[in-house]
């Protein structure tokens, strides 16, 4: 066997001494209970070990083939958005005491992570206007899946109505979480001109058999939903829950869903300063009301404040664990165990550094840039915005060119974007979605506008 730098006892002499102390001559003796018929013959067919230098060369030469900022401008959104990661976020989550720890099963030695998660839960409640937030789900999509199942457990009804304005990928995840529980997912069209959820069509679909209505705000098409009070009232008249999905970076300026009656809020913490990482890890937001029924059915881990047994000090610990798989097994509210705690810490650092003013300014910059792009593009004669509803950071643009052809052409201008909506909605084959944030300068926006109109004119 080989000696390896991560494996201290692989040094021959040490290994031999350990074996001797066990009265063994070979490590193979420890595996004698494995029938020889099951053993791998001739070893794994994978490459031999390489040094750190070689590894770095090898992996980085592959990564070199990717197109990324700063060489390329990125205008992609749709569920993961490019935002600036403050240096303190990276610095703090790289502290070994945090990133090499695990679930705080021993709270006395894990107060740092526990308090950070408590602060995270608090900040998510403030942003969403909700009363209880858990300490993370895998991502927005799975948080929605869990919300759908929770709505069934709370209402015992098996129909979930979703606006087609919500992300198609997230709706797909919701379906996967729901079909094994025989929960039906019914989609309602968005208004083809405005791009918002059409109250009239929802009205006829959300009935007394519905467990919940799901809307996103702003929705996947970038449009701000305005009939929220009416939708909320409709749901509650029919004993259905209102589930709202959010991009939390908008909530410094947008009305929090808790204020229009949302029963569950889901979303992704990624736009709060987390790197894109090719779409993962992300961090699912899950928040609800301080209602004993909802709380009992909530998935995921919750951190609470308490005191030491001798009452001398405040401290933090995991609470209401009887909902969870390690105690409740097949009766648990979810199977989630490993979650996204480190990213919850990152989000908490981000929100602490932004504060209320920073969150407002962040929203203003996103709004200003998206509207600036809209202005310039429409001046160049493009159909922009394609939808007439109010928008926040995501902008729809119609081009003469099929939107699936657009990204490759824009890449030649060193631009990444936009999302071809035809991928998800066949009627929107010429519509693309572009996203704007605080990282974009006015020149960046002009570069995009120039490239887009050049490409469009050539058609």
């Amino acid at each position: 066997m080989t000696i390896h730098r991560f494996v201290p006892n692989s040094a021959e002499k040490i290994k031999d001494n350990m074996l001797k102390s066990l009265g063994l001559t070979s490590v193979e003796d420890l595996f004698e209970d494995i029938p020889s018929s099951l053993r791998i013959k001739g070893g794994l067919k994978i490459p031999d070990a390489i040094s750190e230098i070689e590894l770095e060369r090898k992996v980085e030469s592959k990564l070199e083939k990717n197109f990324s900022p700063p060489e390329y401008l990125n205008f992609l959104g749709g569920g993961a958005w490019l935002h600036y990661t403050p240096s303190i976020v990276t610095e703090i989550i790289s502290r070994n005491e945090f990133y090499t720890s695990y679930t705080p099963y021993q709270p006395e030695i894990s107060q740092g992570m526990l308090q950070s998660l408590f602060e995270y839960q608090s900040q998510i409640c403030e942003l969403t206007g909700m009363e209880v937030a858990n300490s993370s789900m895998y991502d927005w999509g799975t948080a929605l899946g869990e919300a759908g199942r929770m709505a069934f457990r709370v209402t015992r009804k098996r129909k979930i109505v979703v606006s087609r304005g919500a992300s198609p990928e997230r709706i797909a995840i919701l379906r996967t979480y729901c079909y094994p529980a025989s929960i039906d997912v019914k989609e309602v069209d968005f208004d083809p001109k405005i791009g918002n959820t059409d109250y009239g069509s929802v009205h006829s679909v959300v009935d007394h058999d519905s467990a919940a209505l799901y809307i996103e705000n702003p929705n996947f098409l970038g449009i701000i939903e305005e009939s929220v009070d009416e939708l909320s009232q409709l749901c509650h008249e029919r004993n259905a829950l209102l589930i709202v999905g959010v991009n939390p970076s908008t909530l410094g300026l947008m009305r929090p869903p808790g204020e229009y009656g949302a029963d569950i809020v889901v979303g992704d913490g990624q736009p709060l300063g987390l790197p894109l990482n090719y779409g993962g890890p992300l961090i699912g937001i899950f928040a609800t009301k301080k209602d004993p029924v909802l709380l009992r059915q909530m998935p995921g881990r919750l951190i609470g404040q308490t005191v030491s047994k001798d009452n001398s000090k405040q401290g933090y610990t995991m609470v209401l664990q009887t909902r969870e798989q390690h105690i409740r097994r097949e009766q648990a509210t979810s199977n989630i165990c490993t979650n996204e705690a480190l990213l919850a810490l990152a989000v908490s650092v981000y929100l602490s550094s932004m504060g209320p003013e920073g969150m407002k300014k962040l929203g203003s910059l996103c709004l200003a840039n998206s509207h600036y792009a809209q202005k310039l593009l429409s001046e160049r004669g493009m159909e922009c915005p394609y939808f007439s509803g109010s928008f926040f950071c995501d902008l729809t643009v119609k081009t003469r060119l099929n939107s699936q052809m657009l990204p490759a052409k824009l890449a030649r201008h060193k631009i990444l974007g936009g999302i071809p909506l035809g991928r998800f909605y066949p009627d929107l084959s010429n519509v693309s979605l572009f996203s704007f944030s605080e990282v974009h300068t006015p020149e960046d926006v002009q570069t995009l506008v120039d490239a887009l109109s050049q490409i469009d004119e050539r058609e």
Partner: protein
Amino acid sequence: MKKYHQASWNEPLLIEMSKSGRQAFSLPELKPEVLSAINEDRPENLIPEKMRRKTDLLLPEVSEPEIVRHYVRLSQMNFGIDLGMYPLGSCTMKYNPKVSERIAKNPKFSGLHPYQDEQTVQGILEILYELQSLLCEITGMSAFSLSPAAGAQGEFVGALIIRNFLNDCGYSSKKDEMLVPDSAHGTNPASAAMAGFKVVKIPSSEGGIVTAEAVKKVVSERTAGMMLTVPNTLGIFEREIGEVSCIVHDAGGLMYYDGANMNALLGRVKPGEMGFDIVHLNVHKTFATPHGGGGPGAGPVGVVDKLSEYLPVPVIVRKGGEGYGFDYNRPRSIGRIKSFYGNVGVLLRAYCYILSLGKDGLKTVSEQAVLASNYLLSKLDRRYYSLRYSIDQSRKHEFVVSASPLKRKTGVSAGDISKAILDSGNHSPTVYFPLIVDEALMIEPTETEPVEFLDQYATILNELAETANQSPESILKAPERTSISRLDEYRASHPGSLVLNWRYLLDGAKKKKDDDNKGKRNGSSNSRKHS
């Protein structure tokens, strides 16, 4: 015992330090040319009036140095594998190579957007495609999906694959039972139930394994499959696995491998060879990615050829001359289970780890994980920590001892011992799991623990037992060297005293103030009456 003392800062919440006007953000100013082009000085006015935030957003107003100090202090009140031994059984807390961290921070990875055109992300797709192939080779499966975010999600995916495959075979609801041993991790029954199965418990044998005989007793035409981890949570290899797989297969069921313990078998046995049809790997455990205080992880799922059509979408494929890309067109797929393509940041680290160790290195990992666990076990005082099940047999990467002899003699429980260990500057084992061992201490030292630490850990456990014998009170007081002593867990979860965020505190404080004021008012009106 080495002297250890964790920092104890009495650190307030950031919101309690908040001072109006302080800020730690730095964002560009809104540009006049932009504002004039959009004809709006206050961009928030672009949001329809009724959808604007009207209430103040309560977030801390603090400066950058305060934030850094706050979190560095909090970090000093936390414990990770980079500080000391962390033998949390089943969780595989091993050293996380730093080179993987550096590579994962490369902007050519961290800056990639999941909706970039495939042609612009060929590098990362190539890596992920290669990782799929490596995982296939390591597990003996023929196709892998990298989507699942963690082990538990992999289990859910696996259970759905079983469900849909059996449906397509025409069994429909007749096959609705999932066999799960009583020693299984809680996620197994929870995932099976989420996928719509009834969970049928298989009792472990005297020897601590699932025997063919026990399976025969519960298997029936309703059996859809079985979920099993090998070695099991007792650290014992499932000797009868070959026969068990045959029985389940003969009943038309499928075998699911919970790969949480794959680190014991790397390079020695492939789950596919043991008869498993579906495998998840806990990448964060087996392939050494940091656990981040609870996550992120990754739980890729591999399947045998006949199940490959059922994997979640999208699957990464090689598209001939066009390089690598995604395949979404899979009509039999169980569907999508995760946004985008999984926890790629974690997967990239795993790829780096596998390449670093290579073929022989992976086998060294299983060898050394098993050696470390047996070595540590051999050093424990069995008068206090007894072994259950197959006593004469070696363990694999972890073992479970029962502290019940200790408890009988001294009144000190496994839970108490777990608290006292913390005072040594090491983390405690997993306690009270698996459920089939009373007073369980589940210990997984991993291959990255130097023998000196193994010796020290054994000494600590043995000395604590002696101390328990002589002065149990001192153990019941532990921990005393951590940032806080034992917590009031009852109060923490009691509905009357539950505090889930700072609002509870602020509202509580406000209520108290209101009550006090009311009291004062009442008091003053009373006194007026008297005067």
